[in-house]
């Protein structure tokens, strides 16, 4: 099953997003990672890499990110890791929910999960 990693500048936010998506995603493996590793806001490449490895069961991982440096640190983590992983260019909460649901399909691939996460960009709320 394709795994998910949620990266936020706040560990609390990442945990919350993973919690929301987990309600819809059933068995989907979702790892939440955030913060600067010193108790403050930020993102750290090493921690994201560890989360990617924890989320992978051999079928690859889609990474959802919040803002700015989360993207750069996720890129570094993917380059460093041996796991097949991609970043989804999606709003982090809506994208994670979409990805978690898509990952439950037996036909899901890293690409199909990423596509559905990115489809959340077009969702209108009003």
């Amino acid at each position, binding site marked *: 099953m394709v795994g998910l990693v949620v990266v936020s500048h706040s560990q609390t936010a990442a945990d919350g997003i993973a919690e929301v998506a987990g309600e819809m995603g059933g068995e989907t493996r979702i790892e939440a990672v955030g913060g*600067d*590793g*010193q108790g*403050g806001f*930020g*993102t*750290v*490449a*090493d921690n994201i890499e560890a989360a990617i490895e924890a989320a992978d069961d051999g079928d690859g991982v889609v990474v959802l990110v919040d803002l*700015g*440096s989360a993207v*750069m*640190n996720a*890129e*570094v983590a993917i380059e460093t890791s041996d796991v097949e992983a991609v970043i989804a260019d999606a709003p982090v909460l809506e994208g994670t929910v979409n990805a978690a649901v898509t990952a439950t399909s037996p036909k899901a691939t890293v690409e199909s999960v990423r596509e559905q996460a990115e489809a959340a960009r077009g969702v209108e709320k009003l």
Partner: protein
Amino acid sequence: MSDEGEAVVAAVAAVADRLETERSHLTDLDSAIGDADHGGNMARGWAAAAEAVAELDDPEPMAVVKTAGKTLLSEVGGASGPLYGGSLVFASPELEDGLTAESSVAFAETYLEKVQDRGDARVGDKTMVDALVPAVHTFKKSVEVDDMEPVAALSKAVAAAQRGVDFTVPIRASKGRASYLGWRSVGHQDPGATSTLYIMEELLDVATAYGEAPEELPDHAESPTIPDGEVTED
């Protein structure tokens, strides 16, 4: 320990000392247009890097630079971790055969390429790239076209980086957190360009101590702040 390895370890230690000294200045610059963490992040990261490279058993230049970069990646976080640390790791293989004029140019170019690729910034965006691009182009031209010794070329490159830092003051940010401020970013010096200059100044100091002194002082009147790119391709 090779002399070259020793020099690179000393350079990392010198950068760590300098960034500790400049911690509050960098934070002040960053509090004007960013999130006020650049001074603390850089000081903490480079202090950890200096400790890590001091513990290497056989510190050759490539291993020292790679270790410093990996430490910055894990300690700094934010955007500075990948930009400064990730780029050091990526460029470190250029120093596999040690420090020469040729390998130093290749290292500088690869480092710049990674910073630009990762941060997607160009000259004029009010980022570290504004200091780095003229510095790297000037270094390459001084070595390859003007046939200068590496230390003298580095001295010219530091002067170019200083002009790049000055150039960030009057312009409007279009990358990074400062870009959210729009025109309000005008008049503030970019912290990333500034820390890049400090790092280069320390490299020059250590290189001067370990190598030959520059034959002449850099000529501030020459080479534009923003080389047009073709300068380096001659």
